[in-house]
Structure formats: structure tokens, C-alpha cells
């Protein structure tokens, strides 16, 4: 089953339909919701959205990697990456399993 791609515009429209605020308000609220998540992550905070999942920033050490195209060794700088762990509820729904 190939589903469709959901975008910001779809989310704003869904909020408009279900909450009944103006389209302009809804677009702004979708944007700010995502921004607030990003801002918290930038501060190094863990973002826990019950029923959805947990976003967390992890620090990666510097390491030697390779340029996959040329095979040459290349240094990879230390960096921060996001990890997302889906909630049990989301995992169970996405897997369509009866368990859990």
C-alpha cells in the first residue's frame, strides 16, 4: 500500500478542518509547533511527545571515514545528530500488529 506524502500545507488544512481556526492561524501554528521542537533540541533538550515519540540530540565523536566515491580516507568532525524513537503506540500502529 503506497500512501501519500503529508506536508506542512496538509497539516495546516487538517488543523483548519478539525479545530476551525483561520487558515492563516493554522499555517502559523504548524510552523511554530515544529520550530518549538527545533528550538528545544538546539538547547540540547529531549523532546517527548507522548503517543508519538521522543526526539533527542546525540553527540557523535570525530572519526575517520572514507569518501564513498573515491575511497579516500576523510576526517569526520564531531557533530550533533537527532535520534527519533517512535512511541510504542506509533510502532504498534505502523506495524499493524495486534500485539501491544
Amino acid at each position, binding site marked *: 500500500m503506497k500512501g501519500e506524502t503529508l506536508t506542512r500545507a496538509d497539516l495546516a488544512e487538517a*488543523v483548519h478542518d478539525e*479545530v476551525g481556526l483561520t487558515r492563516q492561524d493554522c499555517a502559523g*501554528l504548524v510552523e511554530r509547533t515544529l520550530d518549538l521542537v527545533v528550538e528545544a533540541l538546539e538547547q540540547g533538550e529531549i523532546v*517527548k511527545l507522548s*503517543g508519538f*515519540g521522543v526526539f533527542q540530540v546525540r553527540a557523535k565523536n570525530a572519526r575517520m571515514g572514507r569518501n564513498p566515491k573515491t575511497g579516500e580516507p576523510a576526517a569526520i568532525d564531531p557533530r550533533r545528530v*537527532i535520534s527519533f524513537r517512535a512511541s510504542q503506540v506509533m510502532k504498534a500502529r505502523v506495524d499493524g500488529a495486534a500485539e501491544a
Partner: protein
Amino acid sequence: MIKSELIAKLANENPHLTQKDVERVVSVIFDRMTDALVKGGRVELRGFGAFSVRARPARAGRNPRTGESVAVRAKAVPFFKSGKELRERLNLGGDA
């Protein structure tokens, strides 16, 4: 930050909206994202990231307590890839 804190911040920024409305806004946003994945679709939020569903093949696992081999069936799991802008924002300063 947990969901109620996110709702409180959003409500603070939008004094013309009721707390109840803001709660519903946040629920609709994350519920719709989950629904899209359940239907086998993707969620693409430029600058933030993309959620998709990845197939994990069936494999032979082990019961960690007894060491017995058990069959693990194929699974569909949610996957998030952070967007370019988000990755960049997290790595400002520090290195580079």
C-alpha cells in the same frame, strides 16, 4: 520538553486562542503524521525532517535469557531522517 510544555509555550504566544484549541492543534498535527505513516505514506517537513516507514525483514532472533533461537517476523518500523536545515542548526559554532 514534553507535550504539555509545548502546548503551554504555543498558548503563550497566541493569547487570542484558548488553551483547549491549542491542545487540539498539537494533537491534530502529531496524530495526522502518525496516520500518514499507518497508511504507508511519508511525512515531509522541509527544514525539519521526513518520517517514513521502513521494512525490516524477518530474522532469527534469540531469547536473551535462554539463548534459544526464535523466529522474528518481518516488521514495518517508523523512521525519521532529520532535515538539512535542522542538522545545520544543531552544528553551528562548535566545529566546522
